[in-house]
């Protein structure tokens, strides 16, 4: 199981039945693979569809049905097509039960930075600022480090995506919950321990009294 699959499996456990969920592009989009088809979950894609389905078989694409990355998708029975005002109305109005976003950095308060690296890369925020500010629950799904450099840091070196702390951070090593008193380690991966997590984390954190091992079973 590669790191991304591990993270996606753990995040999938956060998806509640009968909810509306937005998955960011890249790693977060993998989460859909581990959500049971009978969970009654609707996936939203912010470009305008609620009820996103799997990639269509070759030769069965519709150029007018795509995800936020421009890739071909399908729609499940019961899907709705919406314009961008309704799409972001749902996001900003708190109608998205959960969003999963990728991360470049997260600070000790749990605030996400994921839309630009000054002087290097400026993809833009797209819908990330709206999702990070407006979704009911915000989960960051990211690798713990990039080239051995911790992505969870005391203070972000790059601009924030939102002043609102996220609700959960899931990496291949650990699960953290941001609280008003700082980060709390809830879970460690089966192949690591608190000391290793401390070594790979750039911010102080408390260890939950209920610390447990991360389950990698999909729900």
């Amino acid at each position, binding site marked *: 199981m590669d790191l991304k699959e591990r993270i996606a499996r753990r995040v999938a456990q956060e998806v509640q039945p009968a909810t509306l969920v937005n998955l960011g592009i890249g790693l977060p989009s993998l989460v859909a693979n581990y959500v049971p088809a009978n969970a*009654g*979950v609707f996936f939203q894609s912010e470009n305008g569809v609620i009820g996103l389905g799997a990639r269509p078989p070759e030769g069965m694409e519709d150029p007018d049905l795509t995800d936020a990355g421009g890739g071909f998708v399908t729609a*499940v029975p*019961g899907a709705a097509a919406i314009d961008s*005002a309704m799409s972001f*109305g749902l996001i900003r109005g708190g*109608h998205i039960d959960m969003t999963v976003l990728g991360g470049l950095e997260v600070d000790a308060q749990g605030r996400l930075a994921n839309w630009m690296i000054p002087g290097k890369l400026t993809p833009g925020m797209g819908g990330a600022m709206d999702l990070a500010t407006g979704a009911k629950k915000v989960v960051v799904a990211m690798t713990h480090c990039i080239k051995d450099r911790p992505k969870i840091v005391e203070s972000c070196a790059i601009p924030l995506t939102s002043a609102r702390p996220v609700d959960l951070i899931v990496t291949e090593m650990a699960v953290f919950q941001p609280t008003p008193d700082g980060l709390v380690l809830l879970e460690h991966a089966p192949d690591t321990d608190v000391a290793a997590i401390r070594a790979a984390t750039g911010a102080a954190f408390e260890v939950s009294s209920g610390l447990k091992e991360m389950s990698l079973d999909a729900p």
Partner: protein
Amino acid sequence: MPAMKRSITPAKAASLIPDGASIMVGGFMGVGSPNRLIDALVAAGKTGLTLIANDTAMPGKGVAKLVTARCLSKAIVSHIGLNPETQAQMNAGELEVELVPQGTLVECIRAAGVGLGAVVTPTGLGTPVQEGKQTLEVDGVSYLVEKPIRADFALIAARQSDYAGNLEYALTAQNFNPIMALAGGTVIAEPEHIVPVGMIPPDAVRTPASLVDHLIERAL
């Protein structure tokens, strides 16, 4: 596959709404209102409700039944001119009426539904609507700052739903319904028809299923 919703009776839906709750109710002069749900509220003898709606219709139609049955302690509406009962209860001090310009009303409901902090509008400036409100200057022009309007419940009428809760509306029966579906804490929809999931094309949906909490069963 989306979550499905088992439809409930109007009486059951009414039982979810406590006395004193705030309710937004779709409809325009009685057209496009959830009539069986309104009847159930009257039958249940609800009191102290705050009504948010375009108008109080005319006696015997739509939300006017809530006025006549004295279910309301307050009404936030744009027009009461076709309902003498509203005017009478207001003049007698039995019903508080807050009049809001219709465009401001729908925009403030939308603002609550889509997470905006306020509506910034020229409508009402220099009129009694301005009283007690902030103004905001943008590029040298003054605007009124109107606050979002939300409610504990949104009671919606629709032409058709599927069992997921996707809603379609018809002609002028649409009016405030799709906007209110964004701004109620709990959204109860009363469709004329309920069809299986997959029967409504995605492009025909005006209110996505996720916004709807309860469906009223279709009339026999």
